[in-house]
């Protein structure tokens, strides 16, 4: 084989615009210059505008007194608290509705998704109707429906709907009995934690034993008994140190008990129902993505039906389900910002709404608000990457 002669005469270099590496470098330098010029333009304008309006930038305003009340506070707050405190309050309220929304949406979504695959024609059609109805109606419309058309038209406190003598529902919200913990109750959460640790140890031990000897115990049921049975036993043994404070009608309103404001109920209901319709579709397609041969092969190995599901179908379906599921969770948390439309005091409503209007510190407030959501997204996508790397199919 002969060496190909170099086509170009030695010492003759191509012009730089034909050199791919140089071209890329020049292109990127131009891009950096354009972006930098754009940023300088914006920053210059912003400074001029802020000076003209007499707004000083900086985060000093966070220490000033807020002077407004908030309808639902998970930690102590009064109108004498600072603007920084309103940020924390809003953030906690966002996380509360987000967390409970994720929980409820998952439960409804998995039930509907499995019902969608039911061999029962009617059940499958009902599940399908649920999915097609709720995912094709804007979320904001659903929030308005639950808030203005349902919860705002409930009877007043005096004529509230009572469920037993403990739970009351009226236009001002849902009233539940509140547990009051007496001394000695601290033992029960402690037992709970101990029980969880014990079951984790049990699971690890059982796995090792299974690998070594092939024998195994019904760990799932055992840990269930430990986690819930042990604290229950302690609860009974210590004589149930809990009393319930019932909500009681005093004058025009209820006192005592836990109050769940209607804004929270509306937002929570709408978020759960809306997101559940997407989760149901994800669950359905995840289960359907498992080729039928997998189930048949497992049955040919004479695995019992329970083990076919647990060892073959569910692990493979989860690989398909989890990535879109987490992005739905993320959507739910971002969508909880619609709270501002009905006045549920979440981060956007309290901090990017009232605090922004009172202080006029638009840039700082919006930047902080966006940073919160960005951090949540970043954490979730880090989890996603970790999970994908863990469950990725290892091929040749």
């Amino acid at each position, binding site marked *: 084989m002969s060496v190909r002669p170099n086509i170009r005469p030695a010492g003759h270099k191509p012009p730089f615009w034909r050199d791919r590496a140089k071209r*890329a470098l020049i*292109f*990127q330098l131009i*891009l*950096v210059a354009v*972006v930098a010029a754009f940023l300088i333009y*914006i920053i210059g*304008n*912003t400074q*001029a*505008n*802020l000076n*003209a309006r007499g707004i000083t930038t900086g985060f000093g305003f966070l220490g000033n007194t807020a002077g407004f009340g908030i309808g639902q506070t998970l930690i102590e707050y009064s109108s004498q608290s600072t603007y920084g405190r309103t940020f924390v309050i809003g953030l906690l309220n966002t996380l509360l509705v987000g967390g409970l929304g994720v929980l409820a949406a998952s439960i409804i979504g998995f039930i509907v998704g499995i019902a969608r695959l*039911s*061999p*029962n*024609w*009617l*059940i499958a059609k*009902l599940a399908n109707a649920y999915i*097609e*109805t709720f*995912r*094709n*109606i*804007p*979320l*904001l*419309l*659903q929030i*308005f*429906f639950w808030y*203005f*058309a349902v919860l705002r*038209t409930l009877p007043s406190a005096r004529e509230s709907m009572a469920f037993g003598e403990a739970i009351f529902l009226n236009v001002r919200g849902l009233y539940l009995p509140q547990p009051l913990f007496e001394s000695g109750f601290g033992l029960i959460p402690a037992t709970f934690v101990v029980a969880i640790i014990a079951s984790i140890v049990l699971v690890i031990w059982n796995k090792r034993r299974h690998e070594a000897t092939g024998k195994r115990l019904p760990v799932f049921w055992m840990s269930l008994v430990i986690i819930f049975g042990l604290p229950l036993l302690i609860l009974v043994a210590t004589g149930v140190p809990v009393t319930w404070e019932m909500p009681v009608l005093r004058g025009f309103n209820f006192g005592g008990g836990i109050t769940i404001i209607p804004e929270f109920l509306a937002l929570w209901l709408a978020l759960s129902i809306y997101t559940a319709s997407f989760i149901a579709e994800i669950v359905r397609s995840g289960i359907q993505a498992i080729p039928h041969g997998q189930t048949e092969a497992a049955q040919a190995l004479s695995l019992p039906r329970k083990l076919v599901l647990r060892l073959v179908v569910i692990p493979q379906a989860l690989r398909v389900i989890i990535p879109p599921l987490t992005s739905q969770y993320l959507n739910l948390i*971002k*969508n909880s*910002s*619609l709270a*501002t*439309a009905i006045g549920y005091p979440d981060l*956007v409503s309290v901090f*990017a709404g009232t605090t*922004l209007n009172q202080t006029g510190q*638009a*840039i700082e407030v*919006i930047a902080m*608000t*966006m940073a919160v*959501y*960005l951090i*949540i*997204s*970043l954490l979730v*996508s880090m989890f996603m990457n970790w999970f994908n790397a863990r469950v990725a199919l290892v091929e040749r």
Partner: protein
Amino acid sequence: MIHNKETIPQRPAPKGTIGPIAWLRGNLFNGPINTVFTLLGLYVLYLLVVPTVQWAFIDANWVGDSREDCTRAGACWVFVNARFSQFMYGLYPSEEYWRANIVFAMFAGIIAWMVVPRLPFKRWMALFALLIFPVIAYVLLHGGYFDLPRVSTHRWGGLMLTLLLATVGMVGALPIGIVLALGRRSNMPIVKTFCVIFIEFWRGVPLITILFMASVMLPLFLPSELSVDRLVRALIGLTLFQSAYMAEVIRGGLQAIPKGQDEAAAALGMTYWKRMGLIVMPQALKMMIPGIVNTFISLFKDTTLVMIIGLFDLLGIVQAALSDSRWLGFSIEGYVFAAFVFWIFCFSMSRYSQYLERKLNTGHKH
């Protein structure tokens, strides 16, 4: 040798495996658990359907022009009837409705042309829709040219505004999305970093904060003598938000094209833009259409958020009509109507996307 030349006639299926009764038995009443589920389902259906039909149709009030005509117990569609033109056009002056109607009709015509597979000249139609139609629509809706009286954007509203926001957001987002997706797959590190940061930023924050940003911060970013219309501000926010999602859909489509296609084109001596424009993109775009339709559906639903920054889209105008003192207490009718309109649009689009997915799924099966 016995040789039977006649084919044996087909025998009917065994009794009990065909017919409605067998179907019922096979699908609804096979086994005690399923029977319980079926009965439960029937009960739920009964609880939902009967009162709804009673309320929405049997006991409903259909004709009249004020709330005094709502005498029966059911829904009062008189409210929707009286406000219908507002729900469609917002506060657009009623003597100029014909202009909006022409735009509506052209829009519907373009969509129909693009959707029906048999009609020819799709490429020209798309060019017309992208380049000429926006100009016609702007001239007609906004006015100020050819003796048409000006209608300023704060009077635009209703379904007209919803459609406008969704289509402009979508059409604007498509080219930005393509550039971002190509940038994210680029080998140039700075370009790639910029694109990743841009995409992840817009995808990471809720639309409502973007709309707040567009309405509160955009005026700060621009020179004070330059004031941007509120509708345009919302459109900028929506477009940027949508472009990030679009970029991810396009990236997914690009990843589905085997690398050999690009390499083969490069081996033929094609430049980057020729490879993308002639080889990769046409194949990828075909695969992306269902994903693009799906993001369009979410954008269509998300346009309702503009009411929070004070624009009157369909939901915004319904919400405003509900607080009219002459029509208090008809919120369910208003919401049901708005939900019905949104549902029709979103449902038909999702069906179309499923149809496309089935149609496009024929080619490359392994």
